[in-house]
């Protein structure tokens, strides 16, 4: 015998119902045949012998009905009716099938059917839109790639490569006449570099040579200092400049020192100033500072900046 009230009394309030999910405000029913999803006296499929629901399967909606006459045959308890795909026709079908049923169940069935059709429509629309594909990342692979990248970065030596490329382009003349490094000074610099590269293998001797040159130069400059500053002998200046650059290279590795827009003159004064700060032969620095003195404004401006190094 089906005693709905007794059943509800037991599972609804007092004892355990395996479909019930309780939250702070509301109780829910996890039974698949439940029409509203809440745990209520009127919504409980176990505690109502006459019950109806709408369920959908693969995009098709069905009306399920349960009557008390079939309560003794659990296998045949639910009557399944396929609803038409047309919304209005399906509503008429529901009405037709649940014609003398309580208002509550009819209403709730129609509501549920509406909701289901709405979400089916949305699903179909979403499929047509952009699908987001989630690609799983393997941690091991990511770690390996990261390490490879680091190693590749070290092997790449980017700064050197870029500098080399730029110098190549300068040599090939892609820049045209913008940078007018004087040609004969360039040749002289080349010669000097050849000379120095030959002697480079014997470091001690080279240092001695340089020292010798310095010693010689110091004396030379000291004797003729006034004349030197008056002379605007371009060759002499370039010779001194390039040799000072060589020494700069050895000492400071200052290939990275850099300001943005600077004229060559300023660069010269800067290198001279920085060099004089390095190993400064006393007389030579005095002479050079004198020369730098001519453009004292630039020197003051660029001095603090010259201390910054860039990579």
């Amino acid at each position: 015998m089906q005693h709905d009230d007794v059943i509800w009394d037991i599972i609804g309030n007092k004892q355990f119902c395996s479909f019930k999910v309780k939250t702070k405000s509301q109780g829910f029913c996890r039974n698949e045949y439940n029409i509203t999803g809440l745990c209520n006296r009127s919504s409980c499929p176990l505690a109502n012998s006459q019950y109806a629901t709408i369920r959908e399967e693969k995009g098709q909606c069905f009306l399920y009905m349960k009557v008390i006459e079939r309560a003794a045959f659990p296998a045949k308890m639910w009557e399944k009716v396929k609803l038409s795909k047309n919304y209005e026709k399906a509503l008429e079908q529901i009405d037709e099938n649940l014609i003398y049923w309580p208002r509550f169940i009819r209403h709730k069935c129609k509501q549920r059917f509406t909701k289901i059709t709405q979400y089916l429509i949305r699903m179909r629309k979403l499929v047509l839109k952009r699908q987001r594909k989630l690609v799983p990342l393997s941690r091991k692979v990511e770690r390996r790639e990261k390490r490879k990248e680091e190693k590749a970065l070290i092997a790449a030596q980017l700064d050197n490569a870029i500098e080399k490329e730029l110098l190549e382009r300068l040599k090939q003349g892609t820049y045209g006449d913008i940078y007018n490094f004087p040609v004969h000074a360039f040749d002289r610099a080349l010669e000097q570099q050849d000379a120095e590269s030959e002697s480079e293998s014997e470091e001690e001797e080279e240092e001695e040579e340089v020292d010798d040159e310095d010693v010689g130069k110091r004396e030379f400059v000291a004797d003729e200092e006034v004349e030197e500053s008056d002379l605007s002998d371009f060759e002499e200046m370039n010779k001194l400049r390039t040799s000072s650059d060589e020494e700069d290279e050895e000492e400071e590795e200052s290939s990275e020192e850099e300001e943005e827009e600077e004229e060559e003159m300023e660069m010269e004064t800067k290198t001279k100033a920085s060099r004089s700060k390095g190993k400064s032969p006393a007389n030579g620095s005095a002479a050079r500072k004198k020369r730098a003195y001519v453009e004292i404004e630039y020197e003051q401006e660029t001095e603090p900046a010259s201390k910054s190094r860039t990579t």
Partner: protein
Amino acid sequence: MDITEVPVSQDNKGKKKKNKKPKKKSPEGNAESSGVEKEEEKMEKSEPGAAAFPPTFSVSEIKNKQRRHLMFMKFKQEKRKQKMQLKKKKKKEREALGDKAPPKEVPKTIENQRVFDETMVDPEDEEVAFDEATDEFSAYFNGLTNPKVLITTSDRPRGRTVRFCEQLATVIPNAHVYYRRGLALKRVIPQCVARNFTYLMVINEDRKMPNGMVLCHLPDGPTAHFKISSVRLRKEMKRRGKDPTEHSPEVILNNFSTRLGHSIGRLFAALFPQDPQFVGRQVATFHNQRDFIFFRFHRYIFKNEKKVGIQELGPRFTLKLRSLQKGTFDSKFGEYEWVLKRHEMDACRRKFQL
């Protein structure tokens, strides 16, 4: 008797660390006590010299862990000593020979050991030159089109990606950033073509970080999909210069040696206008090393004919090519020229694709 005598003496020596031939000797030395003693004498004589291990001895056969460890350390030290001696000898020989010394051996690097790739491009290859004259970039390289780049992101970009896009737009001249707003790329592309864009760049984002880039050459050019890593925005860069100006930068493409590398190189080259403005002194570099493409943006200045100073400006990032597809973006039905297949391609450490 023999058996009892031997282990005692050998044990003592083992603990004093003078014993080069411990317990292993005991079964062999079992034959005669005199024989054992002789070997012990030999042992003592050979100690001051180099360690002479009998051929059948191995450190792993000692059961005692501490002693085994000690023996192993000693073994290693010996090896190291020998290596140093060898080095010194070689150096001395070298100096002795002076100029006549054989040239120094070049150490093996991954780059020199690279597996020979048959698609490496020969600079004088005519077939390649012909192909490149007639491919999708020929219009650009013949000076007919000016690059115009549209930069966008995936849905709902976060701050870092947005800033990255903005900085990219300053680096690439004639680039425009547009907010995505959930549009489908396949619908965006015809609109771009209609407005004369030549490139579509989509930065994909994951967890607030840019991690992928789709670069699509527009009229109907190839689409390349890259993985982005190590993004450094401008404010995170140390010792950087001021912001880049509007001048078109020069482009440096390094190490794109295979056919695939060539096409990717051309893809990058076509992003920038054909005639760089040398006044701006800016250079964008795409350097390929072991299939990683490093992007850097610098400002340079020539100090003299021998030295150039560079200062890094703009953003830097690393790209790794994932796939190259003919035609514009179509992930389902597109024809893929090249796809990264990890198992095949990453198996060998010395084999690279670009």
